[in-house]
């Protein structure tokens, strides 16, 4: 082995080992929270609050459509806490045996709304008007994996327009993608939560609110995932979400607070 090669190998070895050394140096812990993407802004703030109270813990958020998150956890993803935008997804995880007993609780509610780009001039007095030919594309989450998509489908069914607007539907991977499509003007209308519309007030406007009777109740449950390596931290995170401070943050972002055990 030439001298140069030996030196190179030694340098590579140390630069590979160094990050591990730094990581082991301090007692930092990671808490991974899989949460419905509509919770992004509220949970990121709650996460910062949690980190300020627990200096040795870093909260990592894994955001996406609740259905995708369930599939990941069932596939063995190392998640500590799970929060979904519908009871159905939590039920699915529960029946598959991934929820730690007695940690499941409902922590927020939301409303389903129809939004259009702020610059849109189309009038939509009622959901039935989505049949209008001026409305060519309507975005909604894919009902297979996105709770907001299921609520949208239920609402369309309620107003008996599902068949008529079927060809106009653009299905997305998650609810924030619907928001983005409407914001960019790629579609004429989209179904999101009122809390999502709040995040993009300058670009979209809420034109209709789906009545509660038109879809299943939009309730967000949270639970500790079985197999978590940080059960204590996970439990205290859930406790923060359901605490008065957590509920206050949620309501600041437009969620309706309900801290009740299921």
């Amino acid at each position: 082995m030439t001298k140069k090669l030996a030196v190179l190998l030694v340098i590579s070895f140390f630069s590979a080992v160094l990050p591990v050394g730094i990581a082991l140096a301090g007692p930092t812990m990671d808490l991974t929270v899989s949460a419905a993407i509509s919770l992004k802004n509220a949970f990121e703030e709650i996460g910062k609050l949690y980190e300020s109270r627990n200096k040795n813990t870093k909260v990592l958020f894994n955001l996406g459509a609740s259905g995708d998150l369930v599939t990941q956890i069932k596939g063995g993803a190392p998640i500590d806490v799970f929060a979904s935008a519908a009871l159905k997804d939590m039920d699915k995880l529960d029946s598959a045996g991934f929820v730690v007993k007695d940690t499941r609780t409902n922590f927020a509610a939301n409303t389903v709304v129809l939004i259009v780009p702020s610059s849109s001039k189309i009038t939509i007095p009622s959901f039935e008007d989505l049949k209008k030919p001026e409305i060519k594309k309507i975005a909604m989450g894919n009902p297979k994996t996105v709770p907001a998509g299921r609520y949208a489908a239920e609402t369309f069914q309620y107003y008996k327009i599902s068949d008529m607007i079927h060809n106009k539907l653009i299905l997305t991977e998650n609810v924030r993608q619907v928001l983005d499509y409407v914001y960019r003007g790629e579609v004429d209308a989209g179904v999101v939560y009122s809390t999502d519309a709040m995040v993009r007030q300058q670009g979209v406007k809420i034109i209709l609110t789906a009545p509660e009777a038109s879809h299943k109740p939009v309730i967000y449950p949270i639970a500790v995932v079985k197999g978590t390596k940080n059960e204590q931290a996970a439990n205290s995170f859930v406790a923060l979400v359901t605490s008065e401070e957590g509920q206050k943050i949620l309501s600041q972002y437009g969620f309706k607070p309900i801290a009740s055990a299921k």
Partner: protein
Amino acid sequence: MDDSLLFSLKLSVQVATVATVLVVMVGLSAAYLLSRKNFPGKELLDILLTLPLVLPPTVTGYYLIVLFGRNGLLGRYLYAWTGWSIMFTWYAAVLASFVVALPLMVKTARAAIESVDENLIRASYTLGHSEYRTALKVILPLARKGIVAGTILSFARAMGEFGATLMIAGNIPGRTNTMPLAIYSAAGSGDRSQAAIMVMVFTLFSGFFLYVASKLSRRVL
């Protein structure tokens, strides 16, 4: 085989075929230009045509949205004149596949054209043939190995395109869900058996395609 699976397979083949035809037309022209001509901006063109090869498909997808989205730099004019947007249509899937497969064609065809013996080309000119005739009758036939290879690579790349396609065509069942997208959805929603069937069908199809392609290229070459 399930209806939706057949649809996805048919759509993938359709999109890849149309994209490959476009790639061959544009790619051959570009390869010829780059290998045989000198002009200002030649290096820039080369870089632009190669970029989709090195950029992640999501970056390519992002640029395509910026250009062809309903409010995009080019898309807004298209929408203003025709009321139509390419987003969420199978044409967008073709566009995505075209852009990512083009560098493969340009690179392999250019290398093939550059390796054609210059003496043969000069001989053709001295015999009185025009540049067009020389290109068609002398250069391209002599470069056919690389061109065929480029075509096969492009088709394969187009069939497997995922990231950029997802961004501009969307993943709409029955409309734009090509096989890679459909497999992604099935796997994501936990529909393991559907995903497994599609993966198997796609692998068999790809294997069959490679077999046919190698048989054809042996005949052509």
